[in-house]
């Protein structure tokens, strides 16, 4: 397993803090939301009524029903066209202990050791780790300058052992959102080449501009026996509930959902019962749109700050993060991030963390190379409070100017 450069940042940040220093956290970023009272009340109810026993591996019916309701409500047109209501969608849903665990089950569920899976060259690091654990070869497809997938790069790398490709729109770390036409082409490609399209929708409730289409909706429009999208949802961002660790996967058909649920058995045993009951309330009655409105203001603020301070990088259209190009500093992203933390007390995540590509075995185990396209950037979270954001951007620009001049 690769040691992520994130850990260096975390270690140094906690060292600075333990020495009494004040660190501005734009690395993980705490969105300004509390857990909805509906969800807390749901948990209290579950605890009071003693619902603390085992759950079925796929999840309890209350949770699966709520996830189905939410999915139909989130994508009403697609659902209507495909003839889905919550009732007919529910058997296609598998609960998971967070989006991460869902992805682990999905990757193990569709790939055998020796198969390969195509990932964005700049991506959330868990994909690579999960593929490694599953004994699956990671291949990396190119992104355009706005960090959107380049179709031909995916197409040209698919071979007989390719089982799937992952897309993530809006993306972590770039915030890039794929335009609908690109999503349609990606879906067509998956159908024609008979590979799975894993649609990581962790940030689907946070899109701030442009039209938004998911591969899941395209899949619903396809004939049932051609469907190939496994859509992974997370409750962490949408419901500001990362500590509750819940997510779910929408599968093309009920049998597949049943088979994937079987994988929860060895991976997790089952899911936490009281938290599912709590989150069911959130999925049914709490609307992520209010949080999206708040984040949209911060997004605008971040774009404005970046423009004013001359900070470049791909423009996010969703999500919670912006990449900032630091290549003019002459430093690699980890060095830059460590200096920013040491000298300016601002924590950001080095782009290198999103581009650790395995390149074969060396004498000390697996070797990794940092993808250049990732190493040019640092990731800032714009969900933090506006003052911290402004201060953080200012200090980052200051260090960048200073290094550029040197």
């Amino acid at each position: 397993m690769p040691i992520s450069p994130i850990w260096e940042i975390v270690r140094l940040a906690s060292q600075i803090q333990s020495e009494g220093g004040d660190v501005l956290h734009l690395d993980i970023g705490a969105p300004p939301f509390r857990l909805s009272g509906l969800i807390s009340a749901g948990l209290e109810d579950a605890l009071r009524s003693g619902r603390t026993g085992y759950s079925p591996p796929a999840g309890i019916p209350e949770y699966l029903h709520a996830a189905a309701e939410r999915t139909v409500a989130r994508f009403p047109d697609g659902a209507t066209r495909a003839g889905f209501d919550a009732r007919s969608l529910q058997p296609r849903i598998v609960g998971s202990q967070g989006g991460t665990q869902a992805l682990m089950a999905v990757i193990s569920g569709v790939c055998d050791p020796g198969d390969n899976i195509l990932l964005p060259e700049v991506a959330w690091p868990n994909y690579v780790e999960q593929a490694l654990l599953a004994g699956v070869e990671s291949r990396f497809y190119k992104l355009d300058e706005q960090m959107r997938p380049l179709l031909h790069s995916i197409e040209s790398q698919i071979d007989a052992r390719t089982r799937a490709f992952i897309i993530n729109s809006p993306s972590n770390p770039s915030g890039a959102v794929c335009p609908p036409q690109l999503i349609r082409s990606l879906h067509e490609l998956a159908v024609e080449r008979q590979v799975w399209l894993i649609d990581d929708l962790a940030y689907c409730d946070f899109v701030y501009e442009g039209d938004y289409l998911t591969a899941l909706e395209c899949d619903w429009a396809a004939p049932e026996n051609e469907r190939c999208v496994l859509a992974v949802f997370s409750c962490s961002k949408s419901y500001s509930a990362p500590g509750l660790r819940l997510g779910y996967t929408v599968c093309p058909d009920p049998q597949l959902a049943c088979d994937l649920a079987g994988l929860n058995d060895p991976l997790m045993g089952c899911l936490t019962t009281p938290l599912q009951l709590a989150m069911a309330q959130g999925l049914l009655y709490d609307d992520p749109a209010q949080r999206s409105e708040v984040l949209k203001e911060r997004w605008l603020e971040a774009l404005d700050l970046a423009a004013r301070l001359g900070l470049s990088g791909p423009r996010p259209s969703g999500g919670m993060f912006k990449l900032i190009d630091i290549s003019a500093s002459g430093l690699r992203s980890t060095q830059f991030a460590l200096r920013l933390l040491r000298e300016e007390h601002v924590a950001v995540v080095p782009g290198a963390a999103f581009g650790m590509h395995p390149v074969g075995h060396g004498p000390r185990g697996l070797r990794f190379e940092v993808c250049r396209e990732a190493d040019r950037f640092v990731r800032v979270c714009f969900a933090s409070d506006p003052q911290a954001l402004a201060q953080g951007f200012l200090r980052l620009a200051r260090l960048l100017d200073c290094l550029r001049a040197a």
Partner: protein
Amino acid sequence: MTASAPEPFYPAPSLSQRAQDMPRSAIRRIFENARRLQESGVDVVRLDIGDPDFDAPQRVRDGISAALAAGRTHYSPMAGIPELRSAIAAYMARRWGVDCGPAAVTCHQGATQALNAVMQLCCDSCAGVLLPEIYFPNYIQQVTLGGLRPRFYALDERFVPRLSDLESLLDANTRAILINTPSNPTGALFPEETVRALYDFAARHNLWVISDEAYCEFVFEGRYVSPLQIDWEQPAEQRRVIAIYSFSKGYACTGLRMGWTVSPREEVAGQLMLMNEPFTGSLTTPLQYGLVHAFDEDDTPRRVEALRSRWELAGRELRAAGLPFDPPEGGIFFFVDISSLRTKDGQPISSQDFCDRALNEAHVAVVPGAGFGLQPVYDSSGRPSSFIAGEHAAKGFRLCFAVPEERLKLGVERLRGFIAGL
């Protein structure tokens, strides 16, 4: 009018071979069948799943509520919150005399997840792991998913490992031996000399010991000795036990899905923490704050006493029903022998048929022993093409006695009637 070309048809991709190969748990199968029967209005006596009827302690539930009120719903550190790791370390020292400190403790989203992480940490794909011939079915699922090669060590008539057979199972790829005492499904408690002999065997052959301690709090007879205790008698650099614990049984929190591991050294604990990231991302935060309070009071003995009377009752009832079994010393299960049962036409009955029929005809759910003894058969490409039930496991069925006494009585009574009518 020209005929248009037919639309091309592209069949959907399939699941991975390993997902298809992975055997489904016999417990889940009976569980689902029993649930369906219940939904159709039948009163089924559920002696299948090991979910004791104790509620999670009030102090744990209050702790969760307090965590919510304090807004503790954000990401947790990957190894668990420091408060919980400290509380666990104190418990390990107090309860088991293992002074491991919080640095050796890693929290996990349930002991099952912990076990999977430990298997992957100790063994690369194709590495050998030694399992008891009668075992908890998740082991074989995890082994199949991870591409490991299991071999099975024999158990005697009391379900204690036969030490003489161990050496013959080794090859150059063997990396670990799994020990589970008290055992699920047999309830056998391994005597101290057996645990020491297993430990010495592992030490001689430089194997990891994976110790599944899910039932360590539930011992009714004899003295419980854990491989972990023996390990901590050794200098740190020679230790080899990764022990897996669960809040599910001892602290009646099955649905909270929290467990922990104790590692021989801090760096092993750190590695296990890194394994949490791809598997679960992070751990549920409010539940951890609740479970910090699990150890505030020692109410485990109360649960053990409640279980003890059911354990005695189950023994009495099964004996009265003429069903042979080896009395379990711990855990929450009896493993009942049906190998000498004959139907009216003189035929033996398989554990699978017995349990299916007991459920459908007598409305009592117990789990076929065959499901606890699946052994893979590999084809020439190294794929587990089928699974065969080990003979020893296939002789019986598992019955959970952690249910209210009247249900237990009714269940055994129904089994007795069912057997009489076979």
